[in-house]
């Protein structure tokens, strides 16, 4: 419940932070706390309004975290459904069965806060998009990821078709040639870090595979600019590319370690780090430090 005078924005930010913390705990198997692999435990652990409905800030938080709500299920090594688990009979399948409260919550959040109208730029290659459409493109891809994962649950319908365009590295139309544009592109990719999950693949992932050096440069740049959340998100893409078998020019674990020690300590950033860690190293072993070495 909001405190009197708490600005709405702070209240929503706190809700995102709480939900990121629960997801992180579930991902790391923190004993006794909410496990998203158990149906309804997440919902049961959340506050409800007197009428039993999920409060707006909680739904907004689910909308913000989107696909990352499924991270505990996707990475749970004991689950035969984990697409990274070699024992998973569905490993080669594009269908990753997902269930439980995360799906219910995300579906409800998407109902209450629908995706932006599809009348924004459709990615038509006939003309250069104005800069604002880059942001729309990011939102469109985040939505695609959420709907693609939800489609594997009883709460999702048909997976939405992927957006027609991807954020591309390289010069914009009309701008000078040369290796200039990795900066802006890597920032866009950082905003799309929720796509760096097992079970998701598409044109954005193809770009990540093809431009690991640009991702690495973006990571180093963000580190030097002390933009550690962007660095964490790009390191997550690098970890994803590494898990995909791509060679990297930047060691990822020192980046994760540095951000863990010097970052903002927020659950959102720690969740990015934890997902990157799982992509790099698989499930934690007893006695191993949380950040890989």
């Amino acid at each position, binding site marked *: 419940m909001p405190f009197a005078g708490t600005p709405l924005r702070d209240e929503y930010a706190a809700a995102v932070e709480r939900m990121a913390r629960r997801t992180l705990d579930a991902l790391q198997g923190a004993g006794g706390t909410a496990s998203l692999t158990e149906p309804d435990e997440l919902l049961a652990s959340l506050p409800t309004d007197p009428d039993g409905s999920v409060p707006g800030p909680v739904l907004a938080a689910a909308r913000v975290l989107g696909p990352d709500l499924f991270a505990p299920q996707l990475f749970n090594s004991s689950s035969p459904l984990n697409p990274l688990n070699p024992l998973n009979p569905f490993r080669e399948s594009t269908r990753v069965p997902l269930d439980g409260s995360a799906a219910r919550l995300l579906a409800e959040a998407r109902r209450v806060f629908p995706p932006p109208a599809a009348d924004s730029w459709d990615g038509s290659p006939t003309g250069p998009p104005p800069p604002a459409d880059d942001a729309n493109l990011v939102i469109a891809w985040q939505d695609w990821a959420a709907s693609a994962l939800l489609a594997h649950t009883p709460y999702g319908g048909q997976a939405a078709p992927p957006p027609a365009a991807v954020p591309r590295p390289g010069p914009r139309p009309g701008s000078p040639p040369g290796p200039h544009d990795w900066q802006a592109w890597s920032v866009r990719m950082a905003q799309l870090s929720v796509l760096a999950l097992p079970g998701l693949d598409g044109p954005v992932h193809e770009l990540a595979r093809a431009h690991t*050096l640009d991702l690495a440069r973006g990571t180093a740049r963000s580190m030097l600019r002390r933009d550690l959340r962007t660095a964490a998100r790009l390191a997550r893409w690098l970890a994803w590319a590494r898990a995909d078998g791509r060679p990297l020019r930047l060691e990822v674990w020192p980046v994760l370690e540095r951000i863990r020690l010097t970052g903002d300590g927020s659950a959102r950033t720690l969740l990015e780090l934890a997902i990157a860690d799982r992509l790099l190293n698989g499930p934690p072993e007893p006695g191993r430090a949380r950040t890989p070495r």
Partner: protein
Amino acid sequence: MTADTRVLSTAQHVGSRALDWLDAGRRNGFGRLPDNTVVDLADPNDAYKPLGELALAASLVLRDGVAGPGDTRTARGLLDFAWDQVRAGDLLYERQLRHLTTTDPLETYAHFARADYRHAAMEELLDSLGRLRAVHAVEAEPNRRLAVANARRIVGLADRPDWAALAAATWLGATPEPWAVDWMTAYRITHTVFHLTDWGARPDGLPEPVHAYVRDWLPVWLDVWLEIGQWDLAAELLAVDACIGEPATGRQGWEALATAQHADGLLPRDSEPVDADPAHAFRDHQHTAVVGVVAATITLSRALGGTPVAT
């Protein structure tokens, strides 16, 4: 080598104007040694390091031969001036004679020797010192050892240093986490590249893992120091880009320097206000002008095919 002609034209313009600004400073009497300069210079950095840097820039203009006749004449005039200031090498010789393990006389002399301003007694002395174990036992940072090795190479002394071992001992040699670089380390990086490549004359002088490492991360370092207006360091990084062969950065750097350059050709070292007193402004920003000339010269030279050097 593929060359972006707009980059080359911007670099040429920035470098030429920086050279003119240095020359105008000289004509206004800035950058001269005090009349009472004696061998025991308390602070060589203040006294004649800038003269050595002036000689560096001018000697590279002459070495690479890519400047127009006006800039070539200006460079020759600046070298004559600097050589006169060090009393045709006597001042360097006397200092080296007295301080056998001090390296600044050698390093300064190398810039003159590059353009064939020679001092026979100095070379005999340096040759002799090179045979002392003491001279090689001096404890120095690895990038400083490279500076000495390259200076001796330029002068033409007979040593055969182990370049691979010297390179391996530097920061770059370890190819560390690229996000761990700080401002001082970045300068050590640029100088490691300058000495290993002899200021762009030997682009193959970087060992391969280091070469790939610099190409990978130079765009990042340039970007972050351009963003905070560290023009002096940015110009050094652009010089590095020219030293390693095919450039790894695009137009961003040179266009930022061109925008930062003042109407009179002054290239500010950073984004702080420039001192209104011309003498102070010259003192504060002469290094950046030198770097601008060096970076532009090597950029043009490499794009036009490079300068062969005798081995």
